[in-house]
């Protein structure tokens, strides 16, 4: 009977103030969509790092007149460096082979190049690509080295773009969340006002605090959950329409977003939506009802 009473009060409450309820749900869902997008992007950057960091190498190009002894010494130094996972020596001939494969579409260009014009190099994979600076510090200054190129720098630029987009959607999520909080607070105040007689009688006859507060808090929680479900729907549709279809070419490069990650957003958004609205409602009631 009490459960039925509380549920009934919740439905009546949401309906009594339906425009406010809709506004509350919309702001909540936009805010949660942004939050979800931001978290997905964060997970995506991690995935991309995992994927590309396995591939990237540091190229150490050697000076043209490097002596065999110098090269052997450098190779030994690289092999013994604890940061290095593997290093491969690429001779001028091997460089030419690779060059041929890389530019097989323009044979004239390939013919014009001979092995001597390509630099000898070491291709080094680091155990952790983030350790590049330390590694560079270790090998820099060797007389045989002409130039060190870290592929990570290129990736870093892509990640920077990702990170700033992610930050932007977090900011939007926070602003919308603030608006949603104000709306929740306002809705609860209106609800409490329209039920002030009931609340006064309940306090008088000794209804427990949770029983007085539950309908109001649940009202906010229901709105938060509906907002979360809508937000999740928006994320999922956005993922399918934009990433899987319209921007497929882009996602192919940037590694695809797994559906599992998107589904993971449902409990996250629902949890955040429910907890945030319940908390706001509860705090509002503490000020407004003084139960």
């Amino acid at each position: 009977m009490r459960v039925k009473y509380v549920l009934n009060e919740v439905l009546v409450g949401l309906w009594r103030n339906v425009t406010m309820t809709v506004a509350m749900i919309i702001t909540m869902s936009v805010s949660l969509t942004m939050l979800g997008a931001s978290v997905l992007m964060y997970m995506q950057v991690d995935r991309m790092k995992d994927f590309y960091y396995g591939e990237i190498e540091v190229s150490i190009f050697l000076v043209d007149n490097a002596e065999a002894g110098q090269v052997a010494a450098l190779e030994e130094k690289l092999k013994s460096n604890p940061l290095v996972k593997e290093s491969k020596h690429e001779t001028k001939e091997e460089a030419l082979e690779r060059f041929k494969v890389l530019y097989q579409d323009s044979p004239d260009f390939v013919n014009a190049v001979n092995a001597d014009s390509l630099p000898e190099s070491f291709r080094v994979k680091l155990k952790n690509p983030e350790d590049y600076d330390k590694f560079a510090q270790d090998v820099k200054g060797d007389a045989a080295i002409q130039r060190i190129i870290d592929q990570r720098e290129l990736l870093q630029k892509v990640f920077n773009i990702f990170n700033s987009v992610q930050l932007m959607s977090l900011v939007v999520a926070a602003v919308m969340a603030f608006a949603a909080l104000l709306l929740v607070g306002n809705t609860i105040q209106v609800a409490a006002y329209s039920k002030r007689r009931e609340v006064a009688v309940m306090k008088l006859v000794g209804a427990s605090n949770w029983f007085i507060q539950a309908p109001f808090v649940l009202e906010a929680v229901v709105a938060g959950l509906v907002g979360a479900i809508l937000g999740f729907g928006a994320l999922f549709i956005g993922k399918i329409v934009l990433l899987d279809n319209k921007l497929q070419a882009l996602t192919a490069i940037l590694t695809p977003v797994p559906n599992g990650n998107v589904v993971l957003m449902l409990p996250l958004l629902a949890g955040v939506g429910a907890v945030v609205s319940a908390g706001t409602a509860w705090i509002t009631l503490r000020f407004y009802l003084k139960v």
Partner: protein
Amino acid sequence: MIQLENVTKTYPKASRPSLDNVSVGIEKGEFVFFIGPSGSGKSTIIKLLLKEVQATRGKVVVNAKDVTSLRSWKIPQFRRSIGCVFQDFRLLPNRTAYENVAFALEVIGKTKAVARRVVPEVLELVGLGGKEHRYPHELSGGEQQRVAVARAFVNRPLILLADEPTGNLDPDTSVEIMRLLDRINRTGTTVVMVTHDSNIVNQMRRRVIEIESGRIVRDQARGVYG
């Protein structure tokens, strides 16, 4: 049953205390009038007994419980042992007489079955048999106050507090309400009534405690309004 020990209550921003070092004891089963002019502090006593306000100094004991140190989450349970009636009835306008009384039971966790058994009984007791399904606006002032008394009494509280219960009623209806309170008192319920209705007090000849400017100036068994 009720014990006030050196109780002082000063509201924030008030220049003088509403109650000033008041001590009084009320035994189980007593019927007590608090009288005095408006603003004398007599309603503050009701609020203190319900812990709607906190005493500034002193100790308030109700039902052997020290109200002054009662934790706030225990207040609801505490209030279930006290019934309350007010000048403005405080009924829910969109509920019938039956539903108003049943509401008080349901929100403290009693089942509908209990309500079906107890509510008609108590409505009969207050003389509203046959009017269970009327809404407050379909009832006279006296009948509305009877519903309020029924609601206050349905839990069989040990104490019934009445804050000017006849303030909105004509003299004849007031007498009927007083008879009702008297009957409830005879079941063993302690009744504390705040009033400035001299006729009522003079007719009842019960204990009278007069308050003026926050101090007790008279405490008389079988007293009159004076």
